[in-house]
């Protein structure tokens, strides 16, 4: 699933919100946001329990974007769901904005944990999942990791611990677009055999197409994969997915000084409309 036309109206609309943020901020991790946005879309549209009017509702599911640099995608979903007004999207990275280049839980309703420094979210989510188990809650915890993030040793400390505790309410989703800042993951720090690694740490693992909405929905709504294990979903994605000129193009991992022309080019490439 690599062609632009395969994006449905909802996926196009959410990407257009990301571009709206770029227009205001003139910068952002575009490739990372487009890579993870379909995963977030399915979680927020079809899977997670939440209440935008009561973001700390104890009965909610917890979702942590551990790869905090993908936050433009998260902001798009949170605004779309009503956690804060759409108008905030025009202020990203402004001095007094609630929305920065990484998500801040102290400022943004719906952000469970401040992330940005990589390798933190899985442990925080693990602590939440352990608490929920003690509290006999049926809420679930989802933590979304980047592939480059999985270079961090702390990710594997947390994975080892989750495996030990057989935390079935705990799901790690890896946005595996095979690219990190310098180049391909294979070149910088090869993660393979990736599935084997998660299995060895005690996870039930499923590989999915991270842009196939039906497949994501089907897997995410049938968790846990194994009632005595945490789950790892390895989502094969495309960095920059949705704008062919940005796909797998490292210049779009993090883009500075975004021009009006580039904004227009992105909107044209994405297609669709602002409403879905």
């Amino acid at each position, binding site marked *: 699933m690599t062609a632009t036309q395969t994006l449905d109206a909802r996926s196009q609309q959410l990407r257009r919100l990301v571009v709206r943020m770029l227009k205001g901020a003139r910068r952002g991790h575009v490739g990372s946001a487009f890579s993870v946005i379909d995963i977030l879309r399915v979680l927020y549209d079809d899977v997670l329990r939440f209440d935008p009017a009561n973001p700390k509702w104890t009965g909610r599911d917890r979702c942590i974007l551990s790869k905090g640099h993908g936050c433009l995608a998260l902001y798009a979903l949170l605004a779309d769901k009503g956690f804060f007004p759409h108008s905030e999207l025009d202020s990203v990275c402004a001095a007094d904005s609630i929305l920065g280049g990484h998500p801040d839980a102290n400022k943004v309703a719906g952000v*469970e944990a401040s992330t940005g420094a990589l390798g933190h979210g899985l442990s925080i989510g693990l602590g939440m999942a*352990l608490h929920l188990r003690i509290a006999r809650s049926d809420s679930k915890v989802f933590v979304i990791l980047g592939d480059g993030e999985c270079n961090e040793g702390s990710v594997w400390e947390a994975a*080892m*611990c989750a495996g030990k505790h057989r935390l079935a309410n705990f799901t790690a989703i890896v946005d595996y677009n095979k690219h990190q800042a310098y180049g391909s993951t294979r070149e910088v720090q090869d993660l393979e055999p990736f599935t084997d690694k998660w299995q060895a740490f005690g996870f039930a693992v499923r590989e999915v197409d991270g842009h196939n909405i039906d497949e994501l929905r089907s897997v995410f709504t049938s968790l846990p994969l194994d009632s005595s294990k945490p789950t790892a979903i390895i989502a094969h994605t495309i960095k920059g997915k949705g704008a062919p000129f940005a796909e797998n193009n490292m210049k779009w991992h993090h883009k500075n000084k975004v021009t009006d022309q580039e904004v227009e080019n992105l909107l044209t490439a994405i297609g669709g409309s602002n409403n879905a």
Partner: protein
Amino acid sequence: MRERCLKTVTELARTDERIVFIGSDLGVGVMADFKAAFPDRFFMEGVAEQNLVGMAAGMAMEGRIVFLNTIATFLTRRCFEQVVVDLCMHNVNVRLIGNGGGVVYAPLGPTHLATDDLAIMRSIPNMTIIAPADADEMARAVRATVDYPGPVYIRVAKGHDPVVTTETEDFQIGRGVPMRDGHDALIVTTGVGLQVCLAAADQLTASGIDATVLHMPTVKPLDTESLTAAVERVPVVVTVEEHSIVGGLGSAVAEFLAEADLLGLRKFRRIGFPDVFPSGYGDQAGMMRRHGISPDAVTATVKELLVPRSRRRLSEINRSGLWPKFDRVV
């Protein structure tokens, strides 16, 4: 001290279901009572400090009060980013219990010497730092942390230190404890530095020098009110800590006194480990002594700073309220 600390955590957990204990790979049988009574709130998660701190933060975000115990150097140096981001940025109720604060682990060498823990923790917004002087004070301090907002670092000294604190009231986080009263010098200390300073004060008294000893079991936030009141009466201020002179209690006191324009012509010295990795092994007291953290060294420093010839007279002037002139006399 560590035993009383953990025993107090267990006692508190009996009546407070929010309390959770996390250890790394502590000795066999540690917290056995807690584990037996509350197995679902007991976690021993291995030599993975980054994960321990992160998971503690996650639990605390959910309303738990987490007591996390391992060796001080690993809590401060190893997982500094987790302490900053997960605990302090989120301002969550995790209590870090750092074993072997200072040079308790002298025989184990420099990787285990926590001579920079106060400096490391002081640099982080929202962090509170407590360094009790003995087991009794530790028990009171741990009880005081339960409903105190935000992360707290609790520095644990060696076991079986002499009990020197006498307070019976509840521990007040952020409050200094005057232990001796005198007009000739002020000695400010924390942790088991208090034992050193009380012995030094006895030596000074025997020499006719009356020193105030101000114990700061809370290093951050610093009790600047008590400090101001104590400083205004004396010509000499000495800080004493089982820590590097860089960034710890001495630095905190110096920063405050300088910026509050309280130094004037007062003489000020920090006693602690110099800015090097302490060398050698031996034991805690020996290592402290070798680096000038001893009653004899504190006494000598105070005497050196006082002007022997005029000390008594100046003390009298000071008591008479003519202190500003005293500055010029010196």
